[in-house]
């Protein structure tokens, strides 16, 4: 049994960890949105593909480098690269031809890509669950009374923090980041500034997808299983998180992800898990009424 303080602390930890997953995935969402105004519904599935790539690479490496952190890191690097390439290719062949089309058409294409990834993976893996058995002790960590924070959780928190800081810096401070933001506003004019629009969009998809892969491999390690529809709920939640944080804003995506995770944990504790989504969505909707552009989103400027 917990003391009330411990319960709050433990649920906060639970929420933060879940929030980290949401945040990592919604980072990709928000980056892609931030440059082409596309709600990339296939993003959750890239996370799934990332998890599978991680799983297979890890399996292949297990014999050589063992089943510890080294293999995990190598698997993660491989997954990041391959998913980055996948994201780039998807962008190149499915989205680029549609950049000038109505935004909803692009959304539908994204749904199509999501179907393709999901079903292709289902066929490849026979629809089975795969289990990721590593040798890192999932329960080792720091304990405070009844509350435990494991090493894996700390690694996850660390990765999330590092990525947040470096991406925020990249997008707000470097000329590339500024170019990315400019592209979302006016592509032809960007071309007139000498910006290679297609390349930058491609890079953005690469980075966003690589981030999803990080989350995917971390999910393998943390939860220990992979399956072809694991991206569905994650994708939807991450999308929610991205919007809540103020879509297009990197720290916003992070904040939105953590907040959503915390709300779900809190909802589970307070109202029970069957009402947690009602609880989380309810609060988010109320929040949007008061802050219609998301937590850190900027009001779009509109001049007469």
């Amino acid at each position, binding site marked *: 049994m917990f003391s009330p303080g411990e319960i709050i602390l433990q649920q906060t930890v639970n929420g933060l960890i879940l929030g980290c997953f949401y945040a990592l995935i919604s980072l990709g969402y928000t980056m892609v949105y931030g440059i082409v105004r596309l709600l990339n519904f296939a993003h959750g599935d890239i996370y799934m593909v990332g998890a599978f790539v991680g799983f297979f690479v890890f399996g292949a490496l297990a014999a050589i480098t063992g089943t510890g952190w080294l293999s995990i890191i190598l698997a993660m690097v491989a997954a990041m690269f391959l998913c980055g390439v996948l994201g780039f290719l998807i962008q190149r062949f499915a989205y680029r031809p549609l950049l000038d089309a109505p935004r909803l058409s692009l959304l*539908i294409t994204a749904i*199509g890509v999501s*179907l393709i990834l999901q079903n292709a993976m289902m066929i490849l893996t026979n*629809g089975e669950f795969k289990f990721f058995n590593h040798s890192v002790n999932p329960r080792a960590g720091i304990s405070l009374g009844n509350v435990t924070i494991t090493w894996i959780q700390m690694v996850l928190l660390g990765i999330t923090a590092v990525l947040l800081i470096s991406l925020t810096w990249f997008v707000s401070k470097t000329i590339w980041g500024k170019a990315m933001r400019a592209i979302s506003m006016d592509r032809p004019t960007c071309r007139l500034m000498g910006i290679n629009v297609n390349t930058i969009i491609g890079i953005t998809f690469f980075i966003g997808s690589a981030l999803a892969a990080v989350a995917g491999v971390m999910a393998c390690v943390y939860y220990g299983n992979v399956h072809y529809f694991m991206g569905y709920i994650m994708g939807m939640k991450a999308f929610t998180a991205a*919007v809540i944080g103020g879509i297009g804003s990197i720290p916003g995506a992070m904040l939105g992800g953590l907040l959503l995770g915390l709300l779900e944990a809190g909802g589970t504790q307070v109202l029970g898990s069957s009402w947690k989504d*009602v609880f989380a969505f309810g609060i988010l909707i109320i929040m949007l009424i008061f802050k219609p*552009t998301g937590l850190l989103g900027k009001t779009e400027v509109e001049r007469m």
Partner: protein
Amino acid sequence: MENKNNLDLNNGEVAVVHEGTAKRGFFTRIIDSVYSFMDKTHNKIIVAVILLAFVLTVPLWADNYILQVAWNAMFYMLLALGCNIIVGFTGMVDLGFAAKFAVGAYTSGILVHTFGWNFWLTLPIVVIVGMIAAVLIGGPALRLRSDYLAIVTLGFGEIVRTVARNLEITGSASGLSGIKRPYIFGTQLTRIWMWYYLFVFLVFLFVVASNRVKDSRFGRGLAYVREDEDAARAMGVNVVKFKMWAFIVGTVMGAIAGAFYVMQMAAVSPNSFQFTQSSNILLAVVLGGMGKVPGVMAGAAFFSIFPEIFRSIGEYRMLFFGIALVLVMIFRPQGLWPERRRR
């Protein structure tokens, strides 16, 4: 005098048009020529009559399965037409349309199943509940810009589903089943062909309603809102009110479709209202060509018939469907049958 002359010199008319030998894809050319054929009114009537005759005679030759698929297509047309008011006409992104049809389905289902009402008497209640739901969802959402609106509709979709799953009155997770089917002129509607005809009639009503909305001051107001909210405001359009009513009309249409759906299925469960359902409806609208009534219907038909045609390939089916979606969008970015505005 001089003025006149000068005016002729550069009166701002479109430059002389030289018909170019544009290189267009073969299919695009075929499709375009079909559309330009359809632009002439009497061709339109001929095609409509042939189509109608075809649609009405389907039950004469089709087996149970084909009728079920055809019925399903009609059902998706109803949903897509409702969604089209919100998405196509007004340009709001709705990711929770399934919630709207859930509202109608449960209202009618509960009244008939639990309280023993006559189905037809539940329809006015369905309309009222649909309006209330629209106001509840729309109230907070309509002041938001598109993507934020999308998340609110999505959120409400999930909320409606979760609530339905947790309440006793909605039959919780298993939903309601064994609902008594309604009678019409003393005959109980048990056979699929009866439902088919009923739904054809409903589609007809929805098409008429959509067209009337489109060609009215209300519908034009929606188009103005879709194109440019600020300019619309400047022209005297009460943007929030128009959006709200578009939302209400769309929701009520969805709710009515849901009420009939639940009667045909004789069962309803929260599983029918998952996010995929909402995205499917949106997909039908965009695939067909937002705002264009026949286009939206074509989209719904494509959406419900395509996967059936490929049913035999089993697990590859949805993969192909995904590929088809992407290809259609790449080659027809405006949808299968978009609005053509140039003369």
